[in-house]
């Protein structure tokens, strides 16, 4: 059990390693109510994932177009090296819910696979729960869980109950404990009625709930969720998010989430790491991302009469304008909201006005494209 479970931690801060013999994870300074500060060394405590200078290079065969090139590629194959992950470093604390995001091919899945010991890094160090995933893959698997939204770990033709029993046996869970655990997860995930239905007959949302429940049987310390809500409808997505939140709260499971759905990130995570072209472009709290990178506000305005909207202020852009209503984007780095609202008020008689932040989705997409600078 970690220190954070034993004591009520009121303030945690990382301090830079200065003394000799300190582990790569550094030292964590903890303030405990009524006791004062104390220091913890090493990775087994608060930092449960530490990655330093991690690289992964893939070698792929290249073949140019045409018959001659095909023959040539057999006789003299040419290879291209692709840097999937390039010198990345980060750490994750116990109980954290972290979003690991980036566009397709950014290196997200490659990183997760290295963290779980599936892929061997080309260079760099990884420490997960005090273990090196490459050398201790089997040992580590008892303490981590993973759900890949696009792949299944349940037996397709059998009911989830059978798969759970199998997983319980694979994770060497004693029978009585397994029964208790299954009944707890069954209730939590509301899958009581699904336990006897073959997995192939479940809907995607039902299956994903069973997948996540299955990956929690062995009480993992960390769970890697790789696009868990992909292809789900809004209601089911929300349900999955609520479950993940509850899980984190009740069992103190660390969540390592990758998703293309900004809703997942916004609602679940406090911190996000953005990766693009194999490099970490940002490692910041969601709040700070919004604060630092929010360059635009969106104004929705409704008039009581038909208006012909024409704007001569450079910081304002019309996104949509039709009859009585308009949607305007205001660049707050070159103009002010006050100026914008004032201008819109002058156009006609305003019935309703709503000012909102630029959606996180757009901010992230701007960060991917390098359009955003803090």
């Amino acid at each position, binding site marked *: 059990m970690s220190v954070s479970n034993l004591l009520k931690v009121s303030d945690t801060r990382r301090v830079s390693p200065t003394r000799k013999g300190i582990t790569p994870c550094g030292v964590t300074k903890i303030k405990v109510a009524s006791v004062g500060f104390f220091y913890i060394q090493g990775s087994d405590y608060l930092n449960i994932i530490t990655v330093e200078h991690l690289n992964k290079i*893939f070698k*792929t065969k290249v073949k140019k177009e045409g018959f001659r090139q095909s023959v040539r590629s057999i006789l003299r194959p040419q290879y291209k090296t692709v840097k999937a992950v390039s010198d990345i470093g980060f750490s994750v604390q116990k109980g954290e819910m972290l979003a690991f995001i980036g566009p*397709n*091919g950014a290196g*997200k*899945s*490659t990183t997760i*696979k290295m963290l*779980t*010991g*599936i*892929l*061997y890094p080309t260079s760099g160090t990884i420490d997960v729960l005090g273990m090196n995933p490459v050398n201790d*893959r*089997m*040992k580590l*698997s*008892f303490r*981590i869980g*993973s759900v*890949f939204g*696009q*792949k299944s*770990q349940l*037996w397709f*033709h*059998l009911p989830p109950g*059978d*798969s759970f*029993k*199998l997983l319980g*046996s*694979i*994770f*060497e869970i004693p029978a009585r404990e397994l029964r208790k655990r299954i009944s707890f997860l069954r209730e939590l995930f509301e899958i009581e009625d699904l336990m006897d239905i073959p997995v192939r007959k479940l809907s995607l949302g039902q299956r994903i709930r069973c997948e996540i429940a299955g990956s929690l049987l062995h009480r993992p310390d960390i769970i890697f969720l790789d696009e868990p809500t992909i292809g789900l409808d809004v209601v089911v997505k929300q349900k999955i998010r609520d479950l993940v939140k509850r899980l984190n709260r009740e069992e103190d499971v660390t969540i390592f989430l990758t998703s293309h759905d900004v809703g997942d990130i916004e609602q679940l995570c406090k911190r996000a790491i953005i990766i693009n072209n194999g490099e970490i472009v940002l490692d910041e709290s969601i709040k700070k991302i919004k604060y630092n990178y929010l360059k635009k506000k969106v104004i929705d305005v409704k008039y009581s009469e038909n208006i012909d909207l024409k704007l001569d202020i450079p910081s304002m852009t019309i996104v949509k304008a039709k009859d009585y209503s308009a949607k305007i984007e205001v660049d707050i780095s070159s103009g002010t909201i006050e100026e914008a609202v004032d201008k819109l008020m002058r156009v006609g008689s305003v019935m309703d006005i709503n000012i909102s932040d630029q959606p996180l989705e757009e901010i992230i997409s701007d960060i991917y494209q390098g359009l955003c600078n803090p």
Partner: protein
Amino acid sequence: MVKIKKYWTVFKISIQNSLIYTSSFVTGLIFYAFIIFIFINLWRVIYLKKELIAGFTYNQVIWYCIVTELITISTGGNIFRTISNDIKNGAIGYNLNKPYNYIFYNISNNMGNVVIRLFFNAIIGIAMGFIFVGRIQGFDVIYLPLMLICIISAIFLNLILFSAVGLTAFWFEENSAFFWIVQKVMFMGGLFFPLDMMPGWIRNIALVLPFSYVTYAPARTIVKFNPNDFSWMFLIQVTYILVLLILNMLIFRKGVKAINVNGG
């Protein structure tokens, strides 16, 4: 004990799973009965003028074919396909994340299917043998458990052989060619007729290769049973099983390092 129990559970679950694919083993069963029927007629014509060919009577050669086909058809090529596909489509990621040995997992996972097919094929095979040629000449019921051991260890050896071939997918995107080659070599290892009918030099080569211990050796031991032959054959089978298991582990360990999980 807990470590072994997990493979037992995998085996039990795979039996349940196989029972769902009834159409698969019913078609396998029809195929098996059809092949045996062809052999019965083919060998009947060959034995019209002779009573003994290379030391085998008609009765023995039919039972020989019933056994070799029983072993190969019941094993099938599922283990090869599962392992190759796992590696090619990246599903192996889920397997590597679990605390079990991937090779043992796949063997136990396939054994469920094999046991079911073996059970039904054996009923058909034995029934056809009894109907067309009568019981095995010199059959003694005391040796029945040892005969069963011959078959089970041959199936193990076959699975391990094809699992090694499946693991080549770590390096070859299209590895079916290896499967076909091994399968054809298996034909020459005494699948259709005893190696005793082959020229001496081919027989000598075949006898040092593992393939003949999947088909020829166990089938010959069953139709011409004597405890001494059985002991030798079983010893060689076990040795090959262990050697190939180690080979599997080595290929797997090397393959995992070279893994390029497809689909990011």
